[in-house]
């Protein structure tokens, strides 16, 4: 746990923050060029295939973000260090953003290819339930008046929500039809090397953007906590963590 905290500290240093920002812009630019210009149109779907280079990476980052919420929530309940709670909060916000993006981009893709904005496909339905669960998580984060209680409740939702997701997915898959494989409405596109590169760089770019959002949000979270702690305590100048942990305890 201590080494994980050191890695987090290294990532959130101002220099790393700027470096991540530059890297994110560069990766997004490379991803845009590869997916819009370099990669060829698909034999069946034509230019619509280019939606894959944003839709699939967004979905990957959404799941990654919620996995981070789960790990950070467990770490918070075990260590009771405020930084883990801030990490969970930051990651959940990014996760909700990327989940919503996944659904919107997927709908835009589905309309011309499948002929509908929405089908009750297992992956679609699971993603929608996932979005609702983490909207609930963010709602819980806005509620309790005490920072300690807010962190604990949110951590519990972060853990239960993540444990729930595989069961939700399994139930939707069976619910669609117990004895048939999930319906494949489109075939797997023939992947040319340029397409593979576009998708790979897309994954990389979205992951770096997620990390950048995370680091920015962590800094905002630290500032929020500092403002709160200084407002609550007359003893200005004490380390924020001490003040907050006192506040959480009392």
């Amino acid at each position, binding site marked *: 746990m201590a080494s994980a905290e050191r890695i987090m500290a290294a990532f959130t240093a101002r220099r790393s923050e700027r470096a991540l920002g530059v890297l994110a812009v560069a990766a997004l630019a490379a991803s845009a060029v590869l997916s819009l210009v370099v990669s060829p149109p698909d034999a069946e779907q034509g230019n619509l295939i280019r939606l894959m280079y944003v839709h699939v990476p967004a979905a990957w980052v959404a799941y990654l973000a919620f996995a981070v919420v789960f790990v950070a929530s467990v770490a918070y*309940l075990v260590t009771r260090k405020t930084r883990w709670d801030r990490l969970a909060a930051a990651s959940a916000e990014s996760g909700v953003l990327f989940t919503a993006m996944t659904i919107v981009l997927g709908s835009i893709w589905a309309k011309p290819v499948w002929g509908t904005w929405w089908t009750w496909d297992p992956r679609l339905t699971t993603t929608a*339930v996932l979005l*609702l*669960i983490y*909207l*609930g998580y963010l*709602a*819980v984060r806005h*509620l*309790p*008046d*005490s920072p*300690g*209680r807010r962190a*604990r*409740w949110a*951590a*519990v*939702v972060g*853990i*239960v*929500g993540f*444990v*729930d997701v595989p*069961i*939700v997915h*399994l*139930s*939707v898959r*069976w*619910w669609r039809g*117990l004895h048939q494989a999930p319906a494949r409405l489109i075939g797997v596109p023939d992947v040319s090397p340029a397409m593979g590169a576009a998708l790979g760089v897309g994954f990389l770019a979205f992951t770096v953007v997620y990390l950048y959002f995370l680091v920015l949000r962590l800094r905002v979270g630290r500032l929020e906590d500092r403002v709160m702690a200084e407002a609550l305590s007359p003893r200005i100048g004490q380390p924020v963590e001490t003040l907050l942990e006192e506040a959480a305890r009392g």
Partner: protein
Amino acid sequence: MTLIGQALAVASKDIRVEVRGRHGMAAVLPFSATLLIAFGLSLGPGRALLLQAAPGLLWLAVLFAAVLAFRQAYHAEGEDGALEGLVLAPIDKAAVFLGKASAVAALLLVLEAVVVTLVAAMFGMHLGHAPAALAATFLLGTIGLAAVGSLFGVLVESARTRDVFPLLLLPLATPVLMAGAKATELVVGGRTSEVGSWLGLLGAFDVAVVGVGMLVFGHVVED
């Protein structure tokens, strides 16, 4: 006292409160009946459609009524600092969780018996094919539902957090809704042999939420 003994003590306290006051059932039972009539009215009098929709509507009514039941079960704890007393009692927090969940589960089973009877009568659903499989479906579904609800029930204690409770409960309980509705559909349709995997899914959900709940409930009620 063992964990089970402690849990039973908490559960029997809750059930005693409900039996003496009947605050929960007095509101929840009429509410679920109202829901079923509203479902029927919204779908029209066609028997075939009603029969097809019945298992899903049944579980939807249970889920909505459960939201109300949890509110009632935890509302009483908010009065006169009862929850503080419970949390400060020298017993395992996991036992408090199991006790509250069992009491609500017992309440929900009574509610479900009424709802099932109403659906059978009003929507023409035939129950006689495999009573044991039907009972198992409701028992397993109720355990999971009661566990999720009891874990987050503390939220309803304060007015500010009350409205978030359904937003958390309904998405987290989607496996209960889907597996419950499908299993019920199979049983009332006479296809009992296919129901096993759905019961397994409900069981897996129960194990997951009861297990996680026992581990983390102490953190929910800490202050």
